[in-house]
Protein backbone atom coordinates (compact mmCIF):
# COMPACT_ATOMS: atom_id res chain seq x y z
CA UNK A 1 0.00 0.00 0.00
CA UNK A 2 2.78 2.36 1.01
CA UNK A 3 4.73 1.29 -2.06
CA UNK A 4 1.78 2.23 -4.27
CA UNK A 5 1.53 5.56 -2.49
CA UNK A 6 5.22 6.25 -3.13
CA UNK A 7 4.90 5.22 -6.77
CA UNK A 8 1.90 7.51 -7.18
CA UNK A 9 3.69 10.33 -5.43
CA UNK A 10 6.77 9.92 -7.63
CA UNK A 11 4.58 10.02 -10.72
CA UNK A 12 2.84 13.13 -9.43
CA UNK A 13 6.17 14.85 -8.76
CA UNK A 14 7.61 13.88 -12.14
CA UNK A 15 4.50 15.17 -13.93
CA UNK A 16 4.43 18.57 -12.23
CA UNK A 17 8.01 19.21 -11.07
CA UNK A 18 9.05 21.32 -14.02
CA UNK A 19 6.07 23.70 -14.03
CA UNK A 20 6.13 24.01 -10.23
CA UNK A 21 9.86 24.71 -10.27
CA UNK A 22 9.44 27.45 -12.90
CA UNK A 23 6.57 28.97 -10.90
CA UNK A 24 8.66 29.10 -7.72
CA UNK A 25 11.89 30.10 -9.47
CA UNK A 26 10.27 33.16 -11.06
CA UNK A 27 9.42 34.45 -7.59
CA UNK A 28 12.74 33.80 -5.84
CA UNK A 29 16.16 35.10 -6.78
CA UNK A 30 18.25 31.94 -7.27
CA UNK A 31 18.19 28.18 -7.77
CA UNK A 32 19.20 27.35 -4.19
CA UNK A 33 16.19 29.23 -2.80
CA UNK A 34 13.90 27.66 -5.40
CA UNK A 35 15.20 24.22 -4.42
CA UNK A 36 14.51 24.88 -0.73
CA UNK A 37 10.96 26.00 -1.46
CA UNK A 38 10.45 23.09 -3.87
CA UNK A 39 11.48 20.58 -1.20
CA UNK A 40 9.09 22.11 1.33
CA UNK A 41 6.28 22.05 -1.22
CA UNK A 42 6.81 18.40 -2.09
CA UNK A 43 7.03 17.35 1.56
CA UNK A 44 3.78 19.20 2.29
CA UNK A 45 2.12 17.64 -0.74
CA UNK A 46 3.25 14.16 0.35
CA UNK A 47 1.86 14.66 3.85
CA UNK A 48 -1.39 16.22 2.71
CA UNK A 49 -2.18 14.23 -0.43
CA UNK A 50 -4.67 12.02 1.43
CA UNK A 51 -6.64 15.12 2.40
CA UNK A 52 -6.98 16.26 -1.21
CA UNK A 53 -10.71 16.27 -1.88
CA UNK A 54 -10.82 16.74 -5.66
CA UNK A 55 -12.80 19.95 -5.21
CA UNK A 56 -10.27 21.63 -7.45
CA UNK A 57 -7.87 20.33 -10.08
CA UNK A 58 -4.80 18.63 -8.71
CA UNK A 59 -2.55 21.09 -10.53
CA UNK A 60 -4.46 24.02 -8.96
CA UNK A 61 -4.01 22.49 -5.51
CA UNK A 62 -0.28 22.02 -6.15
CA UNK A 63 0.07 25.60 -7.39
CA UNK A 64 -1.70 26.86 -4.28
CA UNK A 65 0.70 25.02 -1.98
CA UNK A 66 3.67 26.22 -4.04
CA UNK A 67 2.42 29.81 -3.98
CA UNK A 68 1.83 29.79 -0.23
CA UNK A 69 5.24 28.25 0.42
CA UNK A 70 6.92 30.80 -1.85
CA UNK A 71 5.17 33.73 -0.17
CA UNK A 72 6.10 32.35 3.25
CA UNK A 73 9.71 32.05 2.11
CA UNK A 74 9.72 35.60 0.71
CA UNK A 75 8.25 36.93 3.93
CA UNK A 76 11.02 35.27 5.95
CA UNK A 77 13.59 36.61 3.49
CA UNK A 78 12.24 40.13 3.94
CA UNK A 79 12.56 39.76 7.70
CA UNK A 80 16.15 38.59 7.23
CA UNK A 81 16.91 41.43 4.81
CA UNK A 82 15.92 43.95 7.45
CA UNK A 83 18.99 42.93 9.42
CA UNK A 84 21.43 41.96 6.64
CA UNK A 85 20.47 44.39 3.81
CA UNK A 86 20.40 41.74 1.06
CA UNK A 87 18.71 44.03 -1.48
CA UNK A 88 21.86 44.72 -3.49
CA UNK A 89 23.16 41.17 -3.42
CA UNK A 90 19.80 39.92 -4.64
CA UNK A 91 20.06 42.02 -7.79
CA UNK A 92 23.62 40.88 -8.37
CA UNK A 93 22.50 37.25 -8.02
CA UNK A 94 19.73 37.91 -10.51
CA UNK A 95 22.23 39.07 -13.08
CA UNK A 96 24.90 36.53 -12.32
CA UNK A 97 22.62 33.49 -12.15
CA UNK A 98 24.20 31.08 -14.61
CA UNK A 99 21.02 29.07 -15.09
CA UNK A 100 19.32 31.72 -17.21
CA UNK A 101 20.08 32.63 -20.83
CA UNK A 102 22.10 35.79 -21.29
CA UNK A 103 20.84 38.79 -23.19
CA UNK A 104 19.92 42.37 -22.44
CA UNK A 105 16.22 41.94 -23.19
CA UNK A 106 15.99 39.08 -20.72
CA UNK A 107 17.76 41.04 -18.04
CA UNK A 108 15.59 44.11 -18.51
CA UNK A 109 12.36 42.12 -18.51
CA UNK A 110 13.59 40.16 -15.50
CA UNK A 111 14.28 43.40 -13.68
CA UNK A 112 10.95 44.91 -14.69
CA UNK A 113 9.13 41.87 -13.32
CA UNK A 114 11.21 41.84 -10.15
CA UNK A 115 10.10 45.41 -9.42
CA UNK A 116 6.41 44.47 -9.43
CA UNK A 117 4.61 44.05 -6.10
CA UNK A 118 4.38 40.39 -5.04
CA UNK A 119 0.72 39.95 -5.95
CA UNK A 120 1.11 41.52 -9.40
CA UNK A 121 4.22 39.48 -10.02
CA UNK A 122 2.39 36.26 -9.18
CA UNK A 123 -0.56 37.16 -11.38
CA UNK A 124 1.70 38.23 -14.24
CA UNK A 125 3.81 35.06 -14.10
CA UNK A 126 0.81 32.75 -13.96
CA UNK A 127 -0.98 34.52 -16.79
CA UNK A 128 1.92 35.40 -19.10
CA UNK A 129 4.38 32.56 -18.59
CA UNK A 130 2.16 29.68 -17.42
CA UNK A 131 -0.75 30.88 -19.60
CA UNK A 132 -3.26 29.95 -16.93
CA UNK A 133 -6.86 31.08 -17.28
CA UNK A 134 -8.18 33.70 -14.87
CA UNK A 135 -10.46 31.07 -13.34
CA UNK A 136 -7.47 28.84 -12.60
CA UNK A 137 -5.48 31.73 -11.12
CA UNK A 138 -8.53 32.70 -9.09
CA UNK A 139 -8.66 29.19 -7.60
CA UNK A 140 -4.99 29.33 -6.66
CA UNK A 141 -4.87 32.86 -5.25
CA UNK A 142 -8.44 33.05 -3.96
CA UNK A 143 -8.96 36.39 -5.67
CA UNK A 144 -11.73 37.55 -8.01
CA UNK A 145 -11.18 37.28 -11.76
CA UNK A 146 -11.99 40.99 -12.14
CA UNK A 147 -9.22 41.91 -9.72
CA UNK A 148 -6.84 39.53 -11.46
CA UNK A 149 -7.54 41.05 -14.88
CA UNK A 150 -6.89 44.53 -13.50
CA UNK A 151 -3.74 43.32 -11.75
CA UNK A 152 -2.38 41.74 -14.97
CA UNK A 153 -3.25 44.86 -16.98
CA UNK A 154 -1.37 47.10 -14.50
CA UNK A 155 1.59 44.72 -14.50
CA UNK A 156 1.82 44.78 -18.31
CA UNK A 157 1.66 48.59 -18.34
CA UNK A 158 4.41 48.86 -15.73
CA UNK A 159 6.65 46.37 -17.53
CA UNK A 160 6.15 48.12 -20.84
CA UNK A 161 6.97 51.50 -19.33
CA UNK A 162 10.12 50.07 -17.75
CA UNK A 163 11.25 48.42 -21.00
CA UNK A 164 10.64 51.62 -23.00
CA UNK A 165 12.59 53.59 -20.41
CA UNK A 166 15.48 51.23 -20.99
CA UNK A 167 15.16 51.56 -24.79
CA UNK A 168 14.32 47.98 -25.61
CA UNK A 169 11.57 46.56 -27.77
Amino acid sequence: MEGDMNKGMKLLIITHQSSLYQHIRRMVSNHADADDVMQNVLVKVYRAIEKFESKSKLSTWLYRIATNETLTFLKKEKERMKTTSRNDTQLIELKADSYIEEGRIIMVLEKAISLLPEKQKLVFNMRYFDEMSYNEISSVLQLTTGGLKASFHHAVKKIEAFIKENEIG
Partner: protein
Amino acid sequence: MKIELKKEIRGTCLENIDKTFFEYKVPEGYFDNLSQRALAEAENPSNVNKVVRLIRYSSWMGITAAVVFLIASLCYFNIQISSENIFENISGEEIMEYASMEISLTDLDMAMLLEEELSGFVNISSEAIDQYIDDHTDLIELEKILEFQE
Protein backbone atom coordinates in the same frame (compact mmCIF):
# COMPACT_ATOMS: atom_id res chain seq x y z
CA MET B 1 0.10 31.26 -26.95
CA LYS B 2 -3.60 31.32 -26.09
CA ILE B 3 -5.73 33.69 -28.17
CA GLU B 4 -7.15 35.52 -25.14
CA LEU B 5 -3.69 36.23 -23.81
CA LYS B 6 -2.52 37.34 -27.24
CA LYS B 7 -5.33 39.89 -27.31
CA GLU B 8 -4.41 41.16 -23.86
CA ILE B 9 -0.80 41.89 -24.75
CA ARG B 10 -1.40 42.98 -28.35
CA GLY B 11 0.48 46.18 -29.16
CA THR B 12 2.79 45.88 -26.15
CA CYS B 13 6.45 44.94 -26.22
CA LEU B 14 5.58 41.62 -24.60
CA GLU B 15 3.84 40.50 -27.78
CA ASN B 16 7.00 39.55 -29.65
CA ILE B 17 9.14 38.25 -26.84
CA ASP B 18 10.24 34.64 -27.12
CA LYS B 19 9.19 33.20 -23.81
CA THR B 20 11.35 30.12 -24.16
CA PHE B 21 14.32 32.30 -23.15
CA PHE B 22 12.67 32.70 -19.76
CA GLU B 23 12.62 29.03 -18.93
CA TYR B 24 14.99 28.75 -16.00
CA LYS B 25 17.53 26.04 -16.49
CA VAL B 26 18.29 23.69 -13.62
CA PRO B 27 21.58 21.98 -12.78
CA GLU B 28 22.06 18.78 -14.72
CA GLY B 29 20.26 15.83 -13.18
CA TYR B 30 18.33 18.02 -10.74
CA PHE B 31 14.94 16.56 -11.59
CA ASP B 32 16.28 12.98 -11.75
CA ASN B 33 16.46 12.56 -8.00
CA LEU B 34 14.08 15.29 -6.84
CA SER B 35 11.21 12.91 -6.10
CA GLN B 36 13.53 10.57 -4.18
CA ARG B 37 14.94 13.40 -2.09
CA ALA B 38 11.45 14.73 -1.36
CA LEU B 39 10.09 11.32 -0.37
CA ALA B 40 13.09 10.63 1.85
CA GLU B 41 12.61 13.97 3.58
CA ALA B 42 8.86 13.49 3.94
CA GLU B 43 9.25 10.01 5.43
CA ASN B 44 11.90 11.09 7.92
CA PRO B 45 10.04 11.47 11.23
CA SER B 46 12.67 13.88 12.55
CA ASN B 47 11.57 16.36 9.89
CA VAL B 48 8.01 16.40 11.09
CA ASN B 49 7.40 19.72 12.74
CA LYS B 50 4.78 19.04 15.31
CA VAL B 51 2.21 21.77 15.37
CA VAL B 52 1.72 22.87 18.93
CA ARG B 53 -1.65 24.34 19.42
CA LEU B 54 -1.31 27.16 21.89
CA ILE B 55 -4.98 26.90 22.76
CA ARG B 56 -7.32 24.00 22.14
CA TYR B 57 -10.74 25.35 21.46
CA SER B 58 -13.83 23.34 22.25
CA SER B 59 -17.46 24.11 22.88
CA TRP B 60 -17.24 23.70 26.66
CA MET B 61 -14.34 26.18 26.74
CA GLY B 62 -16.52 28.70 24.97
CA ILE B 63 -19.33 28.19 27.45
CA THR B 64 -16.91 28.43 30.39
CA ALA B 65 -15.42 31.63 28.97
CA ALA B 66 -18.88 33.13 28.56
CA VAL B 67 -19.83 32.24 32.17
CA VAL B 68 -16.55 33.64 33.53
CA PHE B 69 -17.05 36.82 31.53
CA LEU B 70 -20.60 37.18 32.87
CA ILE B 71 -19.48 36.69 36.50
CA ALA B 72 -16.54 39.07 36.03
CA SER B 73 -18.85 41.70 34.54
CA LEU B 74 -21.29 41.39 37.43
CA CYS B 75 -18.45 41.63 39.98
CA TYR B 76 -17.02 44.67 38.18
CA PHE B 77 -20.30 46.54 38.22
CA ASN B 78 -20.91 45.60 41.87
CA ILE B 79 -17.47 46.88 42.81
CA GLN B 80 -18.09 50.07 40.91
CA ILE B 81 -21.40 50.65 42.64
CA SER B 82 -20.03 49.80 46.08
CA SER B 83 -16.82 51.76 45.53
CA GLU B 84 -18.85 54.89 44.95
CA ASN B 85 -20.28 54.44 48.45
CA ILE B 86 -16.84 53.72 49.93
CA PHE B 87 -15.30 56.88 48.49
CA GLU B 88 -18.11 58.94 49.92
CA ASN B 89 -16.80 58.13 53.40
CA ILE B 90 -13.13 58.91 52.65
CA SER B 91 -11.86 62.46 52.84
CA GLY B 92 -9.86 64.08 50.04
CA GLU B 93 -6.82 64.41 52.32
CA GLU B 94 -6.80 60.70 53.00
CA ILE B 95 -6.90 59.92 49.29
CA MET B 96 -4.03 62.35 48.59
CA GLU B 97 -1.98 60.80 51.37
CA TYR B 98 -2.57 57.31 49.93
CA ALA B 99 -1.63 58.44 46.44
CA SER B 100 1.61 60.00 47.65
CA MET B 101 2.75 56.72 49.23
CA GLU B 102 5.65 55.14 47.39
CA ILE B 103 4.76 51.90 45.66
CA SER B 104 7.66 49.52 46.10
CA LEU B 105 7.35 47.47 42.89
CA THR B 106 10.78 47.52 41.28
CA ASP B 107 11.75 46.57 37.70
CA LEU B 108 13.07 43.31 39.10
CA ASP B 109 9.66 42.53 40.64
CA MET B 110 8.00 43.22 37.30
CA ALA B 111 10.53 41.05 35.44
CA MET B 112 9.95 38.17 37.88
CA LEU B 113 6.21 38.47 37.47
CA LEU B 114 6.56 38.40 33.68
CA GLU B 115 8.92 35.44 33.83
CA GLU B 116 6.37 33.46 35.82
CA GLU B 117 3.68 34.38 33.32
CA LEU B 118 5.79 33.34 30.35
CA SER B 119 7.32 30.19 31.83
CA GLY B 120 4.63 28.07 30.16
CA PHE B 121 5.90 29.06 26.72
CA VAL B 122 9.62 28.51 27.34
CA ASN B 123 9.60 24.88 26.08
CA ILE B 124 8.05 25.68 22.71
CA SER B 125 10.73 25.70 20.01
CA SER B 126 10.95 28.54 17.49
CA GLU B 127 10.45 25.96 14.69
CA ALA B 128 7.16 24.90 16.23
CA ILE B 129 6.07 28.52 16.49
CA ASP B 130 7.09 29.13 12.84
CA GLN B 131 5.18 26.05 11.77
CA TYR B 132 2.11 27.17 13.70
CA ILE B 133 2.20 30.60 12.07
CA ASP B 134 2.86 29.00 8.67
CA ASP B 135 -0.12 26.65 9.00
CA HIS B 136 -2.48 29.31 10.26
CA THR B 137 -1.66 32.15 7.89
CA ASP B 138 -3.49 32.20 4.61
CA LEU B 139 -2.45 33.74 1.32
CA ILE B 140 -4.65 36.79 1.62
CA GLU B 141 -3.11 37.69 4.99
CA LEU B 142 0.38 37.18 3.60
CA GLU B 143 -0.40 39.38 0.64
CA LYS B 144 -1.60 42.12 2.94
CA ILE B 145 1.55 41.80 5.05
CA LEU B 146 3.81 41.84 1.98
CA GLU B 147 1.99 44.78 0.44
CA PHE B 148 2.13 46.63 3.74
CA GLN B 149 5.86 46.10 3.94
CA GLU B 150 6.48 47.46 0.43
